[in-house]
């Protein structure tokens, strides 16, 4: 009995020591944007939820300039009656100017702060993030930060961009032989969109991969389950298989194919003592969704030919992407990491790999199988 009373007493007395955070008294930050300010300072823009049952807008945006990222929150606290907390941060944006200098000084506090989820998304923006977060267009999301978060989440889910969670960025940053990537956001008539992929050298943003090339980088990065792919093939590649009595003459115009339900099986082989000449073997199964010329799909040979052409087209695009990576000395694919995982001799290091990237000589071998293509009469 004495023990129970002691426990109850402890409960009562210690109750006051637990810091309370009543949800209605909090300014819950959902997205933070970092912009370059003058004199090496950063300007932080925060989207916070504002719980006012009468107001139509359920969030507001506050900005502050400070030397550190936590300082921003401290300064911004003066602009709102709510206590700013970062436990619900799901999106972190960096302006391109800031990202070019390196983002690790901000990542450090983000990854160490236990209140901030490691599953939050990171992005680079080529317009000031303040402008991005203050733009009013957010579709049905409660605010722009939320809209961008949903946009990125959907894009990852649909295999349009690689995983850009904070944890994978940190992971790729510290791993030897692989560089992180982040989506590059921009605005189009006030509305935020994904413009491309920001390629990083360590933690510095160096180059943009155009939106059309993202899928080809993805093909090299992981096994895809259900992706979509657009490809342009040589105009006359399939001229032997045009339909005899075609409704629309198929001779002019370009040959485009559109694939979906793309499922790939990627394997990267590396040779011993030779980290710079990996060979990529890619098996792909897909469904032919659209083709701009009137091909007679009933012919088995036509399909074989089409598969070969698609494989060839993909190989070309892959080598173009790798060439671009070589020029910028970045390795988001992780060729170096792949080598280090397989071999114990002549291992690459953080310093050596950066120079070796430009010597990369990747050979591609793509197999394409069209599972379903449909027949039209």
């Amino acid at each position, binding site marked *: 009995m004495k023990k129970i009373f002691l426990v109850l007493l402890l*409960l009562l007395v210690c109750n006051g020591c637990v810091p*309370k955070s009543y*949800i*209605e008294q909090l300014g*819950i930050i*959902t997205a933070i944007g970092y912009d370059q300010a003058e004199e090496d300072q950063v300007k932080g823009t925060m989207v916070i939820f504002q*719980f*006012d049952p009468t107001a139509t807008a359920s969030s507001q945006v506050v900005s502050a300039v400070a030397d550190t990222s936590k300082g921003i929150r401290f300064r911004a606290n003066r602009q709102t009656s709510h206590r700013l907390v970062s*436990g*619900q941060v799901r999106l972190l944006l960096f302006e391109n100017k800031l990202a070019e200098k390196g983002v690790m000084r901000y990542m450090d506090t983000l990854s160490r702060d236990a209140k901030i989820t490691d599953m939050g998304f990171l992005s680079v923006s080529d317009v000031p993030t303040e402008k991005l977060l203050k733009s009013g267009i957010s579709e049905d999301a409660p605010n722009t930060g939320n809209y961008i978060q949903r946009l990125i989440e959907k894009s990852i889910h649909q295999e349009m961009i690689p995983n850009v969670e904070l944890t994978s960025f940190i992971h790729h940053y510290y791993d030897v032989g692989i560089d992180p990537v982040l989506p590059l956001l921009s605005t189009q008539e006030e509305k935020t969109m994904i413009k491309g992929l920001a390629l990083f050298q360590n933690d510095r943003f160096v180059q943009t991969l155009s939106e059309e090339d993202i899928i080809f980088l993805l093909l090299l990065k992981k096994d895809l389950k259900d992706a979509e792919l657009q490809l342009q093939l040589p105009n006359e590649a399939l001229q032997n298989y045009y339909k005899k009595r075609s409704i629309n003459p198929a001779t002019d115009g370009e040959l485009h194919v559109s694939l979906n339900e793309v499922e790939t099986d990627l394997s990267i082989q590396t040779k011993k003592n030779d980290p710079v000449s990996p060979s990529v073997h890619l098996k792909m199964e897909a469904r032919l969704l659209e083709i701009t010329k009137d091909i007679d799909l009933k012919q088995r040979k036509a399909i074989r030919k089409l598969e070969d052409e698609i494989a060839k087209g993909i190989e070309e695009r892959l080598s173009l992407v790798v060439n671009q990576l070589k020029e910028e000395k970045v390795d988001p694919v992780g060729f170096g990491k792949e080598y280090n995982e397989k071999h114990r001799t002549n291992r690459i290091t953080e310093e050596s790999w950066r120079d070796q990237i430009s010597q990369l000589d990747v050979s591609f071998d793509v197999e394409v199988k069209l599972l379903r293509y449909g027949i039209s009469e």
Partner: protein
Amino acid sequence: MERRIPVKKELYMESLQKHFRNSPDLVNKTFTFNRQTIVIHFINYQVNKDQLERDLLPPLTNAKKPWTMESLKNAIPLSSSEEIKDFSSLARELIHGGVSVYIVGYEEVVVFTLPKQDHRALNRAETESLVFGPQIAFTESLMTNLNVVRWRLDTDDLTVEKFLVGERIQSEVRVIYLKSLANEENVQTMKQRIEDIVIDEIEDSTVLNQLIEDSSSTVFPQLITTELPDRFCNSIAKGRVGVLVDKSPTAIIGPMTLFNFFESTEDTYMRWNIGTFIRMLRFLSMVISIVLTPMYVAALTYHYEIIPSSLLVSLGQSRATVPFPPVLEALLLEILIELLREAGARLPTKVGQTMGIVGGIVLGQAAVQAGFTSNILVIIIALSALASFTAPSYMMGSAIRIIRFPMIILAGAWGLIGIVFALSFLVIHLLRQKSLGRPYLAPIYPFEASALRGTIFRLPFQKNAKRPSYVMPKDESRFDKKRAGTKRDRSSP
């Protein structure tokens, strides 16, 4: 100390009048014929008058020769005749509906029992209502109840033992079990506990239940009280021990485990898959009922991080105008629900129905509109209240509603840590409980996989050929599993 019956007529009549303190209800009649004086006594309303005037008085008064004790006992066509020498037992027989026949000059009295008892007929179950399956419920009459039990358990193996409990006002208690099945130790424990009761009177079987339970400090019931004869008899057929108390419509069964309180006889009557689903639903609703409101309080007071971001806006907006901290808000609404339930139970049925409207629509709606509570909490509280009402045992449902309050307070004081603390405490507490000395949390602890199929799940009967072993029946096998699984018409190729 025995007091002999007076031989003199005047003395006999006087002492009876004195014993009943000149009660106007004590009727005496003196007949004189065949040169013999006979005095009969009975209590007016305790005796079946029709029977008295049809079966006792005519043969008594039409006799050709004088009565003797022997002829009185044998010649009167009534089965219940008893020769009594002791005065106090005579008085007791009169209270129980006896008619005493006193022949002047004898030292003994013959008592014929012609009791009249008004009690309600067997009726539909009210507190443990069923959608289908047997519908009758026990009544207040022990004899009727025993009759029903005998009728349902049609075997001479059924053993009924009689006890009297109460020092001032005695109640008849019957311990019922199957001799060849019930564990000797269980029966002994039950019998011993009933014998050991020291009390002036027991009001009802539920009182007896509280007196013989293993622990009286816990909120959890350890023996099931039921008004359903089918539930009572099914349990006895599984090797449990049952208790019936006179003047009480509820029967007691033991030993029980926590999970038995979430079983309804309806699970047995349903197809096994539907029965299992419904049983699972009840376990789920118990968890919801205990955890949901404390989780709300904890999340809104301490852990805004765990709230899904899509829920954050609506939660925050509904909380924005509420002037109380979440813990107070939740306690207020929980008490409101308890008030509604209590008011609904106390009011007459016709008025009771309006309680739902007053409580549900007027109070709930107005409280939210006035910014008194958040509407999400109203949903949560209503859900957890609803969930607590799914427990087939009313006692268990009440226990679950009670333990929610400390959970909410702990969640308000310590957040999730408080909830985990409370849940751990709850598990430890349940582990320590016993029912007739048997573990309360079986078959989870001590774990027994084969018993799960009858307790937590409700597998097809052919698959479940064992009686629950935690009851420790003398014979665990219900039937031959192999023979039960085959149907002859289908086995031929």
